[in-house]
């Protein structure tokens, strides 16, 4: 009887100690485990785990950093946008549609140097004809028709595509220009899809 009591007491202490001694891993410790769990494959190397300041802040704040931090990140992003040197905003909306439909690019299954798509339809509605569209981003149907075709909206749209964080620090959208996903010519074509009055987006 006495022995049973002693054993129970010991296990009770062990249980309490087990709870009390749990210390969550630090961010750095977790990051070390995460790093050791990935490997290079094709064009996707482990250096992709090196977070930018913005990625880090957005990850750690639930995509909702304090106002001053958010404004600083947005300002930095806008300052780094490369606008078209020749002032030519719009390309071919038909080519833009093709880019919007294509989802390949920068995956380990993609060939090095192969042109990436914009995959706009993954997240946005664009034309009336394409009914297979996602809803992570807002509908862009009638984008130009609703907003006008002036230079201000063209400049805003270019910057939004180049680096979405210029207007929303922790937006989910990729940085198509800043991260080198699309070329300037490709962005011109996507611009035309949105802002050419003849584009199916604006019908």
């Amino acid at each position: 009887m006495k022995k049973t009591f002693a054993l129970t007491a010991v296990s009770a202490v062990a249980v309490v100690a087990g709870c009390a001694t749990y210390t969550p891993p630090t961010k750095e410790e977790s990051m070390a485990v995460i790093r050791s769990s990935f490997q290079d494959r094709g064009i996707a190397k482990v250096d992709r785990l090196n977070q930018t300041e913005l990625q880090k802040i957005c990850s750690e704040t639930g995509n909702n950093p304090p106002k001053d931090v958010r404004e600083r990140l947005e300002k930095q992003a806008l300052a780094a946008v490369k606008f078209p040197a020749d002032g030519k905003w719009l390309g071919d909306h038909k080519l833009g549609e093709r880019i919007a439909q294509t989802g390949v690019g920068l995956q380990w299954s993609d060939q090095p140097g192969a042109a990436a798509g914009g995959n706009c339809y993954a997240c946005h509605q664009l034309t009336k004809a394409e009914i297979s569209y996602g809803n992570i981003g807002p509908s862009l149907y009638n984008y130009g028709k609703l907003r006008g075709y002036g230079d201000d909206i063209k400049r805003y749209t270019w910057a939004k595509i180049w680096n979405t964080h210029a207007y929303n620090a922790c937006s989910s959208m990729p940085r198509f220009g800043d991260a080198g996903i699309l070329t300037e010519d490709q962005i011109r074509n996507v611009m035309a899809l949105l802002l050419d009055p003849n584009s199916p987006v604006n019908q």
Partner: protein
Amino acid sequence: MRAVSDRAGAAGAVLAAAMLLATGGASAQDNTLQEIERYRQMLQDGNPAELLVVRGEELWKTKRGPKNASLEQCDIGLGPGVVKGAYARLPRYFADVDQVMDFEARLVHCMVTLQGFDRGALVKSPFSGAGQRQTDIESITTFVVEQSRGASVAVPQNHPKEKAAFDRGKQLFYMRAGPYDFACSTCHGVDGQRIRLQDLPNFEKPEPAQRAFATWPAYRVSQGALRTMQWRINDCFRQQRWPEPIFISQGTIDLITFLGVKAAGGKMDSPAIKR
């Protein structure tokens, strides 16, 4: 296997027909979503994964490997040889290796220690390629998960290492990185999101987390193959534009632990069949 591919082909044709039937207009997407749902219902009629359950059971019970042993003494958490309900309680801490393991990690451990297979060879190609025969890991996983059908998901959080796995998995889930700035949570942390017409489960809510977690592994009709949870994680990171997660690495086990804890109470319904 011929019957299997015929069935997949027929199902694909039904989907194509359904897509054609959907007409233009504001409700076109709703109609299409309904047709896809109908297609998913039709798929439930017969699951080719049933064949793999049989093959997996045979592999589990047959004496194989350099040590000529079966896996019937493999302890996957409920004691040596206990398979029923075990998958639903994984990942968990295993004292013999002093670490948290998911099912696939534990299976590899048993194939190495009990049967004498070479670990390097096993982890080199755990997933079957297009048109290839399913790997032994995939077949055995199918058999074992089937033995948990109807069991409640109960990924334990008792041992400090189980808690640490959850905490690291959570950090990984919310970590934005790579050229597209994507985290798991970009797609799986908001209600009602879709990529194209594909619904994305929100792992911050119990119901969608349960439904998603409880239906992997699954037979993927579009690939004509059974895909495991480790594959599901791998292919998410590919589309996230991240480097490749190493098969059964700590990070993948941590992430599966996080997802499993979020899905607590869900009823296992795997192997499922998906588009």
